Protein backbone atom coordinates (compact mmCIF):
# COMPACT_ATOMS: atom_id res chain seq x y z
CA UNK A 1 0.00 0.00 0.00
CA UNK A 2 1.55 3.37 -0.98
CA UNK A 3 1.92 6.23 1.53
CA UNK A 4 -0.29 8.53 -0.61
CA UNK A 5 -3.10 6.01 -0.68
CA UNK A 6 -2.92 5.57 3.11
CA UNK A 7 -3.03 9.32 3.63
CA UNK A 8 -6.05 9.58 1.32
CA UNK A 9 -7.85 6.81 3.21
CA UNK A 10 -7.06 8.46 6.57
CA UNK A 11 -8.41 11.78 5.28
CA UNK A 12 -11.59 10.08 4.05
CA UNK A 13 -12.11 8.35 7.41
CA UNK A 14 -11.52 11.67 9.19
CA UNK A 15 -14.05 13.40 6.93
CA UNK A 16 -16.64 10.72 7.68
CA UNK A 17 -16.08 11.26 11.40
CA UNK A 18 -16.21 15.04 11.05
CA UNK A 19 -19.42 14.80 9.04
CA UNK A 20 -20.88 12.99 12.03
CA UNK A 21 -20.11 16.07 14.13
CA UNK A 22 -21.91 18.46 11.76
CA UNK A 23 -24.88 19.92 13.53
CA UNK A 24 -25.84 22.82 11.33
CA UNK A 25 -27.35 22.87 7.87
CA UNK A 26 -27.45 25.68 5.37
CA UNK A 27 -30.70 27.64 5.06
CA UNK A 28 -30.70 29.21 1.60
CA UNK A 29 -32.36 32.59 0.99
CA UNK A 30 -35.94 31.82 -0.06
CA UNK A 31 -39.51 31.56 1.21
CA UNK A 32 -39.93 29.14 4.13
CA UNK A 33 -42.95 27.30 5.42
CA UNK A 34 -42.29 25.47 8.71
CA UNK A 35 -44.88 22.69 8.66
CA UNK A 36 -47.55 25.27 7.92
CA UNK A 37 -46.94 26.92 11.32
CA UNK A 38 -44.79 29.84 10.17
CA UNK A 39 -44.35 31.37 6.73
CA UNK A 40 -41.53 33.83 6.16
CA UNK A 41 -38.78 34.73 3.74
CA UNK A 42 -35.11 35.58 4.05
CA UNK A 43 -32.79 37.23 1.54
CA UNK A 44 -29.49 35.79 2.88
CA UNK A 45 -28.29 32.37 3.96
CA UNK A 46 -28.33 31.27 7.63
CA UNK A 47 -27.12 28.27 9.58
CA UNK A 48 -29.93 26.20 10.96
CA UNK A 49 -30.46 23.35 13.38
CA UNK A 50 -33.30 21.82 15.39
CA UNK A 51 -33.52 21.93 19.17
CA UNK A 52 -36.22 20.30 21.28
CA UNK A 53 -39.34 22.14 20.09
CA UNK A 54 -37.70 24.79 17.96
CA UNK A 55 -35.83 25.41 14.75
CA UNK A 56 -32.89 27.67 15.46
CA UNK A 57 -31.26 29.96 12.91
CA UNK A 58 -27.94 31.69 13.49
CA UNK A 59 -25.29 33.61 11.60
CA UNK A 60 -22.37 33.47 14.03
CA UNK A 61 -23.25 30.69 16.46
CA UNK A 62 -26.09 30.54 18.95
CA UNK A 63 -24.11 32.17 21.78
CA UNK A 64 -23.82 35.36 19.73
CA UNK A 65 -27.08 35.37 17.80
CA UNK A 66 -30.04 33.05 17.54
CA UNK A 67 -33.47 33.21 15.97
CA UNK A 68 -35.84 30.51 17.24
CA UNK A 69 -39.12 29.42 15.69
CA UNK A 70 -40.91 27.32 18.32
CA UNK A 71 -43.43 24.66 17.39
CA UNK A 72 -46.94 25.68 18.45
CA UNK A 73 -47.23 24.85 22.17
CA UNK A 74 -50.53 23.48 23.50
CA UNK A 75 -52.19 24.56 26.77
CA UNK A 76 -50.33 23.42 29.91
CA UNK A 77 -46.96 22.84 28.22
CA UNK A 78 -43.75 24.80 27.82
CA UNK A 79 -42.09 25.52 24.49
CA UNK A 80 -38.72 25.23 26.22
CA UNK A 81 -38.79 21.76 27.75
CA UNK A 82 -40.86 18.64 28.31
CA UNK A 83 -43.38 18.60 31.16
CA UNK A 84 -40.93 16.60 33.27
CA UNK A 85 -38.75 19.72 33.49
CA UNK A 86 -41.07 21.62 35.74
CA UNK A 87 -38.88 24.67 36.10
CA UNK A 88 -40.34 26.09 32.88
CA UNK A 89 -43.77 27.64 33.37
CA UNK A 90 -46.67 26.19 31.40
CA UNK A 91 -48.37 28.18 28.66
CA UNK A 92 -52.10 28.77 29.20
CA UNK A 93 -54.51 29.75 26.44
CA UNK A 94 -56.22 32.36 28.66
CA UNK A 95 -53.03 34.37 29.27
CA UNK A 96 -53.30 38.13 28.99
CA UNK A 97 -50.50 40.12 27.38
CA UNK A 98 -48.93 40.77 30.79
CA UNK A 99 -49.17 37.09 31.67
CA UNK A 100 -47.37 36.31 28.42
CA UNK A 101 -44.61 38.72 29.41
CA UNK A 102 -44.32 37.07 32.86
CA UNK A 103 -44.24 33.70 31.16
CA UNK A 104 -41.41 34.93 28.92
CA UNK A 105 -39.49 36.36 31.89
CA UNK A 106 -39.73 33.17 33.94
CA UNK A 107 -38.81 31.02 30.97
CA UNK A 108 -35.78 33.17 30.10
CA UNK A 109 -34.69 33.25 33.77
CA UNK A 110 -34.59 29.49 33.67
CA UNK A 111 -32.17 29.56 30.76
CA UNK A 112 -29.90 31.74 32.92
CA UNK A 113 -30.90 35.16 31.61
CA UNK A 114 -30.29 37.76 34.32
CA UNK A 115 -31.59 41.31 34.81
CA UNK A 116 -34.25 41.03 32.10
CA UNK A 117 -35.68 44.44 31.22
CA UNK A 118 -38.38 45.26 28.70
CA UNK A 119 -37.99 48.26 26.42
CA UNK A 120 -41.37 47.96 24.73
CA UNK A 121 -44.44 45.81 24.37
CA UNK A 122 -46.77 46.35 21.45
CA UNK A 123 -49.57 44.59 19.62
CA UNK A 124 -48.70 43.41 16.10
CA UNK A 125 -50.23 41.24 13.39
CA UNK A 126 -48.71 38.08 11.96
CA UNK A 127 -50.83 38.07 8.83
CA UNK A 128 -54.39 37.88 10.17
CA UNK A 129 -53.28 36.73 13.61
CA UNK A 130 -53.05 39.07 16.61
CA UNK A 131 -49.71 38.87 18.38
CA UNK A 132 -47.54 40.74 20.87
CA UNK A 133 -44.00 41.91 20.43
CA UNK A 134 -41.66 42.41 23.38
CA UNK A 135 -38.25 44.06 23.00
CA UNK A 136 -35.95 43.29 25.90
CA UNK A 137 -32.39 43.22 27.20
CA UNK A 138 -30.68 40.86 29.62
CA UNK A 139 -27.28 39.75 30.81
CA UNK A 140 -25.67 36.36 30.68
CA UNK A 141 -23.91 35.13 33.82
CA UNK A 142 -20.63 36.12 32.13
CA UNK A 143 -22.06 39.69 31.99
CA UNK A 144 -22.38 39.57 28.22
CA UNK A 145 -25.07 42.12 27.41
CA UNK A 146 -27.81 40.71 25.19
CA UNK A 147 -30.81 42.16 23.33
CA UNK A 148 -33.84 40.34 22.13
CA UNK A 149 -37.23 40.39 20.47
CA UNK A 150 -40.05 37.98 21.28
CA UNK A 151 -43.18 37.58 19.20
CA UNK A 152 -45.98 35.66 20.88
CA UNK A 153 -49.41 34.83 19.52
CA UNK A 154 -52.18 32.71 20.97
CA UNK A 155 -53.81 31.09 17.96
CA UNK A 156 -55.84 27.94 17.56
CA UNK A 157 -55.39 27.22 21.32
CA UNK A 158 -51.62 27.14 20.88
CA UNK A 159 -48.74 29.49 21.58
CA UNK A 160 -46.86 30.63 18.48
CA UNK A 161 -43.52 31.94 19.56
CA UNK A 162 -40.56 33.44 17.70
CA UNK A 163 -37.53 34.61 19.64
CA UNK A 164 -34.46 36.52 18.52
CA UNK A 165 -31.54 37.07 20.92
CA UNK A 166 -28.11 38.50 20.13
CA UNK A 167 -25.10 40.02 21.84
CA UNK A 168 -25.92 43.71 22.01
CA UNK A 169 -22.72 45.63 21.27
CA UNK A 170 -22.19 44.26 17.74
CA UNK A 171 -24.23 41.24 16.68
CA UNK A 172 -27.68 42.65 17.44
CA UNK A 173 -26.99 45.80 15.42
CA UNK A 174 -25.40 43.83 12.59
CA UNK A 175 -28.42 41.53 12.21
CA UNK A 176 -31.41 43.54 13.30
CA UNK A 177 -32.14 44.91 9.79
CA UNK A 178 -32.41 41.44 8.34
CA UNK A 179 -34.24 40.02 11.36
CA UNK A 180 -36.82 42.82 11.13
CA UNK A 181 -37.36 41.91 7.47
CA UNK A 182 -37.90 38.27 8.41
CA UNK A 183 -40.29 39.22 11.22
CA UNK A 184 -42.18 41.63 8.93
CA UNK A 185 -42.67 38.81 6.43
CA UNK A 186 -43.74 36.33 9.15
CA UNK A 187 -47.23 34.85 8.84
CA UNK A 188 -49.06 32.37 10.96
CA UNK A 189 -51.35 30.63 8.50
CA UNK A 190 -55.01 31.09 9.36
CA UNK A 191 -55.71 27.34 9.40
CA UNK A 192 -52.70 26.15 11.31
CA UNK A 193 -51.98 22.51 11.96
CA UNK A 194 -51.91 21.68 15.64
Amino acid sequence: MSGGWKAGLSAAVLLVFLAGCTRYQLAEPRLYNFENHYLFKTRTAWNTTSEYRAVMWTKSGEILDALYFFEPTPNGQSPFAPESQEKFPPFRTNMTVLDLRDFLTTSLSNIKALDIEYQSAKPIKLGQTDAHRFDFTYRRKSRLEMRGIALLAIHDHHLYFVLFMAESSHYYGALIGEVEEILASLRVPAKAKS
Partner: protein
Amino acid sequence: MLPLSSRLGALVIVALLAAGCEGGQPLYEAGLKDEAFGKFAGRASASDEAARPALSAEEVDRFIRLENIRPEERPPIESDEAGVWLIADRAEASVRREADRIRDAELNSYVHGNVCKLAGAYCSSVRSYVVRVPTFNASMSPNGMMMVHTGLLLRAGNEAEMNAVLGHEIGHFLRRHSVQRQRMIAQTKSTLAWLSFAVALVGGSLNLMDLSSTIGIANVMAYERDHEREADGYGLRMLFDQGYDPRAASQIWSRLIREKEKAGEQRRFNPMLATHPAPQERMAVLGEIGNALAPRMSAMELGRRKHLSMILPRRHMWIEDEIRLNDLKHADALLDVLIEDGVNLGELYYYKGEAYRKQGSKEKLEKALEFYDQAIGRNGTPDRLHKAKGLVLARLERNAEAIEALEKYLALVPEDPDAALLRSQIESIRKKVGNS
Protein backbone atom coordinates in the same frame (compact mmCIF):
# COMPACT_ATOMS: atom_id res chain seq x y z
CA MET B 1 -20.43 -12.01 40.38
CA LEU B 2 -21.75 -12.10 43.97
CA PRO B 3 -25.50 -12.55 44.34
CA LEU B 4 -27.51 -9.35 44.87
CA SER B 5 -28.22 -10.09 48.54
CA SER B 6 -24.49 -10.52 49.26
CA ARG B 7 -23.66 -7.29 47.49
CA LEU B 8 -26.34 -5.42 49.40
CA GLY B 9 -25.06 -6.94 52.62
CA ALA B 10 -21.55 -5.80 51.77
CA LEU B 11 -22.78 -2.28 51.07
CA VAL B 12 -24.57 -2.18 54.44
CA ILE B 13 -21.32 -3.25 56.17
CA VAL B 14 -19.45 -0.54 54.26
CA ALA B 15 -22.05 2.05 55.31
CA LEU B 16 -21.77 0.99 58.92
CA LEU B 17 -17.97 1.09 58.74
CA ALA B 18 -18.08 4.55 57.23
CA ALA B 19 -20.58 5.76 59.80
CA GLY B 20 -18.45 4.27 62.56
CA CYS B 21 -15.47 6.29 61.33
CA GLU B 22 -17.30 9.60 61.84
CA GLY B 23 -16.44 11.95 64.66
CA GLY B 24 -19.97 12.63 65.93
CA GLN B 25 -20.76 15.22 68.59
CA PRO B 26 -17.17 15.81 69.86
CA LEU B 27 -16.30 17.22 66.44
CA TYR B 28 -19.01 19.84 66.80
CA GLU B 29 -17.31 20.91 70.01
CA ALA B 30 -13.77 21.03 68.60
CA GLY B 31 -14.21 24.60 67.34
CA LEU B 32 -15.43 25.77 70.72
CA LYS B 33 -12.34 24.36 72.35
CA ASP B 34 -9.82 25.60 69.78
CA GLU B 35 -7.20 27.67 71.63
CA ALA B 36 -5.35 28.51 68.41
CA PHE B 37 -8.39 30.34 67.02
CA GLY B 38 -8.85 32.08 70.36
CA LYS B 39 -5.55 33.90 69.86
CA PHE B 40 -6.96 35.68 66.84
CA ALA B 41 -10.65 36.03 67.71
CA GLY B 42 -12.20 39.03 69.40
CA ARG B 43 -13.97 37.87 72.56
CA ALA B 44 -17.25 38.95 74.07
CA SER B 45 -15.98 39.04 77.66
CA ALA B 46 -13.44 37.38 79.92
CA SER B 47 -16.18 35.70 81.96
CA ASP B 48 -17.73 34.25 78.81
CA GLU B 49 -14.34 33.00 77.72
CA ALA B 50 -13.92 31.20 81.03
CA ALA B 51 -17.27 29.49 80.39
CA ARG B 52 -16.06 28.02 77.11
CA PRO B 53 -15.11 24.30 77.27
CA ALA B 54 -11.45 23.35 76.84
CA LEU B 55 -9.99 20.74 74.51
CA SER B 56 -8.31 17.79 76.22
CA ALA B 57 -4.91 16.54 75.06
CA GLU B 58 -6.59 13.42 73.70
CA GLU B 59 -9.05 15.51 71.69
CA VAL B 60 -6.20 17.61 70.28
CA ASP B 61 -4.65 14.42 68.89
CA ARG B 62 -7.98 13.19 67.56
CA PHE B 63 -9.37 16.30 65.95
CA ILE B 64 -6.66 18.83 65.22
CA ARG B 65 -5.15 16.93 62.33
CA LEU B 66 -3.68 19.97 60.65
CA GLU B 67 -2.81 23.32 62.17
CA ASN B 68 -5.12 26.23 61.47
CA ILE B 69 -4.09 28.55 58.70
CA ARG B 70 -2.74 31.78 60.19
CA PRO B 71 -4.17 35.20 59.43
CA GLU B 72 -2.90 36.51 56.07
CA GLU B 73 -0.93 33.32 55.50
CA ARG B 74 -0.54 32.10 51.92
CA PRO B 75 0.76 28.57 51.46
CA PRO B 76 4.31 28.25 50.05
CA ILE B 77 4.25 27.99 46.24
CA GLU B 78 5.86 24.53 46.21
CA SER B 79 3.12 23.04 48.41
CA ASP B 80 0.09 21.03 47.27
CA GLU B 81 -2.05 23.60 49.10
CA ALA B 82 -0.75 26.41 46.88
CA GLY B 83 -2.08 24.52 43.85
CA VAL B 84 -5.55 24.40 45.41
CA TRP B 85 -5.31 28.14 46.13
CA LEU B 86 -4.28 28.96 42.56
CA ILE B 87 -7.34 27.17 41.17
CA ALA B 88 -9.53 29.06 43.65
CA ASP B 89 -7.85 32.38 42.71
CA ARG B 90 -8.82 31.78 39.09
CA ALA B 91 -12.40 30.94 40.08
CA GLU B 92 -12.55 34.10 42.18
CA ALA B 93 -11.45 36.27 39.24
CA SER B 94 -14.44 35.00 37.26
CA VAL B 95 -16.84 35.34 40.22
CA ARG B 96 -15.87 39.03 40.44
CA ARG B 97 -16.98 39.53 36.82
CA GLU B 98 -20.17 37.49 36.90
CA ALA B 99 -23.55 39.13 36.47
CA ASP B 100 -25.19 37.34 39.39
CA ARG B 101 -22.76 38.87 41.88
CA ILE B 102 -24.70 41.48 43.80
CA ARG B 103 -23.08 44.88 43.58
CA ASP B 104 -25.28 46.50 46.23
CA ALA B 105 -22.62 48.24 48.35
CA GLU B 106 -24.78 48.50 51.46
CA LEU B 107 -25.67 44.79 51.47
CA ASN B 108 -22.10 43.69 50.76
CA SER B 109 -20.84 45.93 53.52
CA TYR B 110 -23.39 44.44 55.94
CA VAL B 111 -22.42 40.86 55.11
CA HIS B 112 -18.69 41.54 55.07
CA GLY B 113 -18.96 43.51 58.30
CA ASN B 114 -20.39 40.40 59.92
CA VAL B 115 -17.71 38.20 58.35
CA CYS B 116 -15.05 40.48 59.82
CA LYS B 117 -16.68 40.54 63.22
CA LEU B 118 -16.74 36.75 63.32
CA ALA B 119 -13.34 36.16 61.75
CA GLY B 120 -11.39 38.55 63.98
CA ALA B 121 -7.78 38.69 62.78
CA TYR B 122 -8.76 36.61 59.72
CA CYS B 123 -10.92 39.48 58.43
CA SER B 124 -8.47 40.53 55.72
CA SER B 125 -8.02 36.91 54.61
CA VAL B 126 -11.71 36.35 53.82
CA ARG B 127 -13.48 38.07 50.93
CA SER B 128 -17.25 37.68 50.80
CA TYR B 129 -19.39 37.88 47.64
CA VAL B 130 -23.16 37.96 47.80
CA VAL B 131 -24.55 36.15 44.76
CA ARG B 132 -28.11 36.20 43.49
CA VAL B 133 -28.84 32.50 43.76
CA PRO B 134 -32.15 31.34 45.23
CA THR B 135 -30.87 28.45 47.35
CA PHE B 136 -30.04 28.08 51.04
CA ASN B 137 -26.28 28.00 50.75
CA ALA B 138 -22.91 29.62 51.25
CA SER B 139 -19.54 28.26 50.28
CA MET B 140 -15.89 28.81 51.10
CA SER B 141 -12.92 28.36 48.80
CA PRO B 142 -9.51 27.45 50.18
CA ASN B 143 -8.13 30.91 49.32
CA GLY B 144 -10.69 32.73 51.47
CA MET B 145 -13.36 33.47 48.83
CA MET B 146 -16.74 33.16 50.49
CA MET B 147 -19.91 33.05 48.40
CA VAL B 148 -23.15 33.91 50.17
CA HIS B 149 -26.36 33.05 48.34
CA THR B 150 -29.32 35.40 48.56
CA GLY B 151 -31.39 32.30 49.39
CA LEU B 152 -29.52 32.10 52.70
CA LEU B 153 -30.06 35.78 53.52
CA LEU B 154 -33.76 35.38 52.72
CA ARG B 155 -34.14 32.42 55.09
CA ALA B 156 -32.05 33.61 58.05
CA GLY B 157 -34.47 35.14 60.55
CA ASN B 158 -31.81 37.24 62.26
CA GLU B 159 -28.13 38.13 62.24
CA ALA B 160 -27.26 35.29 64.64
CA GLU B 161 -28.73 32.67 62.27
CA MET B 162 -26.92 34.20 59.29
CA ASN B 163 -23.70 34.36 61.27
CA ALA B 164 -23.92 30.72 62.30
CA VAL B 165 -23.58 29.90 58.58
CA LEU B 166 -20.94 32.57 57.86
CA GLY B 167 -18.95 31.32 60.87
CA HIS B 168 -19.28 27.75 59.57
CA GLU B 169 -17.73 28.86 56.27
CA ILE B 170 -14.90 30.70 58.03
CA GLY B 171 -14.35 27.44 59.95
CA HIS B 172 -13.76 25.59 56.65
CA PHE B 173 -11.17 28.20 55.72
CA LEU B 174 -9.19 28.34 58.91
CA ARG B 175 -9.21 24.56 59.34
CA ARG B 176 -7.96 24.24 55.73
CA HIS B 177 -10.61 21.65 54.89
CA SER B 178 -10.04 21.79 51.11
CA VAL B 179 -6.44 20.70 51.33
CA GLN B 180 -7.24 18.17 54.04
CA ARG B 181 -9.84 16.67 51.71
CA GLN B 182 -7.46 16.67 48.76
CA ARG B 183 -4.81 14.87 50.79
CA MET B 184 -7.37 12.37 52.04
CA ILE B 185 -8.50 11.59 48.48
CA ALA B 186 -4.90 11.16 47.29
CA GLN B 187 -4.14 8.88 50.24
CA THR B 188 -7.30 6.82 49.68
CA LYS B 189 -6.61 6.44 45.95
CA SER B 190 -3.07 5.33 46.65
CA THR B 191 -4.20 2.79 49.24
CA LEU B 192 -6.86 1.45 46.90
CA ALA B 193 -4.37 1.14 44.04
CA TRP B 194 -2.06 -0.96 46.23
CA LEU B 195 -5.01 -2.98 47.52
CA SER B 196 -6.22 -3.72 43.98
CA PHE B 197 -2.71 -4.73 43.00
CA ALA B 198 -2.49 -7.08 45.98
CA VAL B 199 -5.94 -8.54 45.23
CA ALA B 200 -4.97 -9.13 41.60
CA LEU B 201 -1.69 -10.79 42.66
CA VAL B 202 -3.48 -13.37 44.77
CA GLY B 203 -6.05 -13.92 42.02
CA GLY B 204 -8.89 -12.18 43.84
CA SER B 205 -12.11 -11.32 42.04
CA LEU B 206 -13.03 -7.95 40.57
CA ASN B 207 -15.97 -7.77 42.99
CA LEU B 208 -13.51 -7.40 45.84
CA MET B 209 -11.86 -4.51 44.04
CA ASP B 210 -15.26 -2.87 43.48
CA LEU B 211 -15.97 -3.28 47.16
CA SER B 212 -12.66 -1.71 48.14
CA SER B 213 -13.38 1.25 45.91
CA THR B 214 -16.84 1.61 47.52
CA ILE B 215 -15.19 1.61 50.95
CA GLY B 216 -12.84 4.30 49.70
CA ILE B 217 -15.67 6.56 48.49
CA ALA B 218 -17.62 6.03 51.73
CA ASN B 219 -14.55 6.87 53.72
CA VAL B 220 -13.94 10.15 51.85
CA MET B 221 -17.60 11.13 52.28
CA ALA B 222 -17.48 10.35 56.01
CA TYR B 223 -14.40 12.55 56.21
CA GLU B 224 -16.25 15.39 54.45
CA ARG B 225 -19.17 15.07 56.86
CA ASP B 226 -16.72 15.38 59.73
CA HIS B 227 -15.45 18.62 58.21
CA GLU B 228 -19.00 19.92 58.11
CA ARG B 229 -19.46 19.04 61.78
CA GLU B 230 -16.20 20.70 62.68
CA ALA B 231 -17.13 23.83 60.68
CA ASP B 232 -20.55 23.91 62.39
CA GLY B 233 -18.69 23.97 65.71
CA TYR B 234 -16.62 26.95 64.58
CA GLY B 235 -19.82 28.73 63.60
CA LEU B 236 -21.08 28.11 67.11
CA ARG B 237 -17.79 29.28 68.58
CA MET B 238 -17.95 32.54 66.65
CA LEU B 239 -21.53 33.18 67.81
CA PHE B 240 -20.35 32.60 71.37
CA ASP B 241 -17.29 34.85 71.02
CA GLN B 242 -19.31 37.71 69.54
CA GLY B 243 -22.16 37.51 72.03
CA TYR B 244 -24.82 36.08 69.69
CA ASP B 245 -27.37 33.60 70.96
CA PRO B 246 -25.66 30.23 70.22
CA ARG B 247 -29.05 28.52 69.87
CA ALA B 248 -29.44 30.33 66.53
CA ALA B 249 -27.14 27.75 64.90
CA SER B 250 -29.76 25.08 65.53
CA GLN B 251 -32.68 27.38 64.71
CA ILE B 252 -31.63 27.99 61.12
CA TRP B 253 -31.57 24.22 60.58
CA SER B 254 -34.98 23.95 62.16
CA ARG B 255 -36.31 26.50 59.64
CA LEU B 256 -34.81 24.58 56.76
CA ILE B 257 -36.22 21.27 57.98
CA ARG B 258 -39.68 22.83 58.33
CA GLU B 259 -39.44 24.19 54.81
CA LYS B 260 -38.42 20.82 53.37
CA GLU B 261 -41.18 19.04 55.27
CA LYS B 262 -43.80 21.50 54.07
CA ALA B 263 -42.56 21.03 50.51
CA GLY B 264 -42.94 17.27 50.94
CA GLU B 265 -39.22 16.67 50.42
CA GLN B 266 -38.61 13.61 52.54
CA ARG B 267 -35.18 12.85 51.20
CA ARG B 268 -33.60 9.92 52.94
CA PHE B 269 -30.16 10.49 54.33
CA ASN B 270 -27.57 8.38 52.52
CA PRO B 271 -25.05 7.31 55.16
CA MET B 272 -22.50 6.44 52.50
CA LEU B 273 -22.63 9.16 49.90
CA ALA B 274 -23.99 12.23 51.74
CA THR B 275 -21.50 15.11 51.70
CA HIS B 276 -23.09 16.77 54.75
CA PRO B 277 -24.54 15.36 57.99
CA ALA B 278 -28.34 15.12 58.03
CA PRO B 279 -30.00 18.48 58.85
CA GLN B 280 -31.81 16.73 61.74
CA GLU B 281 -28.47 15.76 63.29
CA ARG B 282 -27.12 19.29 62.89
CA MET B 283 -30.24 20.83 64.39
CA ALA B 284 -30.21 18.42 67.35
CA VAL B 285 -26.50 18.55 68.20
CA LEU B 286 -26.12 22.29 67.67
CA GLY B 287 -29.27 22.79 69.74
CA GLU B 288 -27.90 20.69 72.57
CA ILE B 289 -24.56 22.50 72.66
CA GLY B 290 -26.23 25.89 72.16
CA ASN B 291 -28.62 25.22 75.05
CA ALA B 292 -25.68 24.32 77.28
CA LEU B 293 -23.71 27.43 76.30
CA ALA B 294 -26.47 30.04 76.45
CA PRO B 295 -26.90 30.12 80.25
CA ARG B 296 -23.14 30.62 80.66
CA MET B 297 -23.10 33.82 78.59
CA SER B 298 -23.33 37.16 80.37
CA ALA B 299 -25.30 38.76 77.48
CA MET B 300 -26.41 37.71 74.06
CA GLU B 301 -28.35 39.05 71.09
CA LEU B 302 -30.03 37.85 67.92
CA GLY B 303 -29.43 41.01 65.89
CA ARG B 304 -32.93 40.78 64.40
CA ARG B 305 -33.71 44.48 63.97
CA LYS B 306 -30.52 45.29 62.06
CA HIS B 307 -30.88 42.14 59.96
CA LEU B 308 -34.46 42.91 58.98
CA SER B 309 -33.54 46.50 58.12
CA MET B 310 -31.11 45.11 55.54
CA ILE B 311 -33.19 42.20 54.30
CA LEU B 312 -36.74 43.54 54.06
CA PRO B 313 -36.09 46.24 51.42
CA ARG B 314 -34.51 43.56 49.20
CA ARG B 315 -36.65 40.59 50.10
CA HIS B 316 -39.12 41.02 47.22
CA MET B 317 -36.36 40.51 44.61
CA TRP B 318 -35.15 37.33 46.27
CA ILE B 319 -38.66 35.94 46.66
CA GLU B 320 -39.28 36.66 42.98
CA ASP B 321 -36.12 34.68 42.15
CA GLU B 322 -37.45 31.76 44.20
CA ILE B 323 -40.83 31.92 42.45
CA ARG B 324 -39.12 31.98 39.05
CA LEU B 325 -37.74 28.53 39.81
CA ASN B 326 -41.32 27.58 38.99
CA ASP B 327 -41.53 24.98 41.74
CA LEU B 328 -44.84 25.73 43.44
CA LYS B 329 -44.36 23.34 46.37
CA HIS B 330 -40.97 24.81 47.10
CA ALA B 331 -42.14 28.45 46.88
CA ASP B 332 -45.28 27.72 48.89
CA ALA B 333 -43.27 26.04 51.66
CA LEU B 334 -40.68 28.81 51.79
CA LEU B 335 -43.38 31.47 52.02
CA ASP B 336 -45.21 29.50 54.74
CA VAL B 337 -42.04 29.43 56.86
CA LEU B 338 -41.52 33.16 56.30
CA ILE B 339 -45.17 33.75 57.23
CA GLU B 340 -44.58 31.89 60.52
CA ASP B 341 -41.89 34.50 61.16
CA GLY B 342 -44.60 37.11 60.87
CA VAL B 343 -42.90 40.08 59.19
CA ASN B 344 -44.71 42.07 56.47
CA LEU B 345 -47.35 39.42 55.96
CA GLY B 346 -49.06 41.43 53.22
CA GLU B 347 -46.00 41.07 51.02
CA LEU B 348 -45.72 37.33 51.75
CA TYR B 349 -49.39 36.55 51.01
CA TYR B 350 -49.12 38.60 47.81
CA TYR B 351 -46.20 36.42 46.73
CA LYS B 352 -48.10 33.26 47.63
CA GLY B 353 -50.72 34.51 45.21
CA GLU B 354 -48.04 35.17 42.61
CA ALA B 355 -46.61 31.65 42.94
CA TYR B 356 -50.08 30.24 42.24
CA ARG B 357 -50.84 32.75 39.45
CA LYS B 358 -47.75 31.61 37.51
CA GLN B 359 -49.18 28.08 37.32
CA GLY B 360 -52.23 29.42 35.51
CA SER B 361 -54.74 26.57 35.84
CA LYS B 362 -58.27 27.58 36.93
CA GLU B 363 -57.83 25.97 40.33
CA LYS B 364 -54.49 27.69 40.93
CA LEU B 365 -55.84 31.05 39.79
CA GLU B 366 -58.69 30.78 42.27
CA LYS B 367 -56.21 29.92 45.00
CA ALA B 368 -54.13 32.96 43.97
CA LEU B 369 -57.17 35.17 44.53
CA GLU B 370 -57.59 33.76 48.05
CA PHE B 371 -54.00 34.72 48.90
CA TYR B 372 -54.36 38.21 47.39
CA ASP B 373 -57.43 38.69 49.58
CA GLN B 374 -55.47 37.51 52.63
CA ALA B 375 -52.77 40.07 51.82
CA ILE B 376 -55.10 43.05 51.63
CA GLY B 377 -55.01 45.17 54.79
CA ARG B 378 -51.81 43.60 56.15
CA ASN B 379 -48.37 45.18 56.45
CA GLY B 380 -46.21 45.38 53.36
CA THR B 381 -48.93 44.66 50.78
CA PRO B 382 -47.63 46.08 47.48
CA ASP B 383 -49.94 48.16 45.26
CA ARG B 384 -49.19 45.79 42.37
CA LEU B 385 -51.38 43.23 44.11
CA HIS B 386 -54.37 44.93 42.43
CA LYS B 387 -52.72 44.58 39.02
CA ALA B 388 -52.06 40.86 39.58
CA LYS B 389 -55.55 40.37 40.97
CA GLY B 390 -57.09 42.12 37.96
CA LEU B 391 -55.16 39.89 35.57
CA VAL B 392 -56.25 36.75 37.41
CA LEU B 393 -59.89 37.90 37.43
CA ALA B 394 -59.64 38.61 33.69
CA ARG B 395 -58.39 35.08 33.06
CA LEU B 396 -61.24 33.69 35.15
CA GLU B 397 -63.63 35.85 33.07
CA ARG B 398 -64.88 37.65 36.16
CA ASN B 399 -64.87 40.70 33.97
CA ALA B 400 -66.52 43.39 36.11
CA GLU B 401 -64.24 42.56 39.08
CA ALA B 402 -61.22 42.48 36.75
CA ILE B 403 -61.96 45.97 35.46
CA GLU B 404 -62.49 47.21 39.01
CA ALA B 405 -59.16 45.80 40.23
CA LEU B 406 -57.18 47.08 37.23
CA GLU B 407 -58.74 50.54 37.49
CA LYS B 408 -57.97 50.60 41.19
CA TYR B 409 -54.37 49.78 40.41
CA LEU B 410 -54.10 52.48 37.74
CA ALA B 411 -55.52 55.00 40.21
CA LEU B 412 -52.87 53.98 42.76
CA VAL B 413 -49.94 53.79 40.30
CA PRO B 414 -50.85 55.91 37.25
CA GLU B 415 -47.18 56.07 36.17
CA ASP B 416 -46.74 52.30 35.91
CA PRO B 417 -44.75 51.52 32.74
CA ASP B 418 -47.47 48.98 31.91
CA ALA B 419 -50.27 51.55 32.19
CA ALA B 420 -50.95 51.59 28.42
CA LEU B 421 -51.09 47.80 28.30
CA LEU B 422 -53.43 47.70 31.28
CA ARG B 423 -55.74 50.28 29.72
CA SER B 424 -55.86 48.26 26.51
CA GLN B 425 -56.57 45.16 28.63
CA ILE B 426 -59.49 46.98 30.29
CA GLU B 427 -60.77 48.04 26.86
CA SER B 428 -60.59 44.52 25.51
CA ILE B 429 -62.49 43.18 28.53
CA ARG B 430 -65.14 45.87 28.00
CA LYS B 431 -65.41 44.91 24.32
CA LYS B 432 -65.75 41.26 25.25
CA VAL B 433 -68.48 42.07 27.76
CA GLY B 434 -70.21 44.28 25.17
CA ASN B 435 -70.09 41.54 22.53
CA SER B 436 -71.44 38.83 24.79
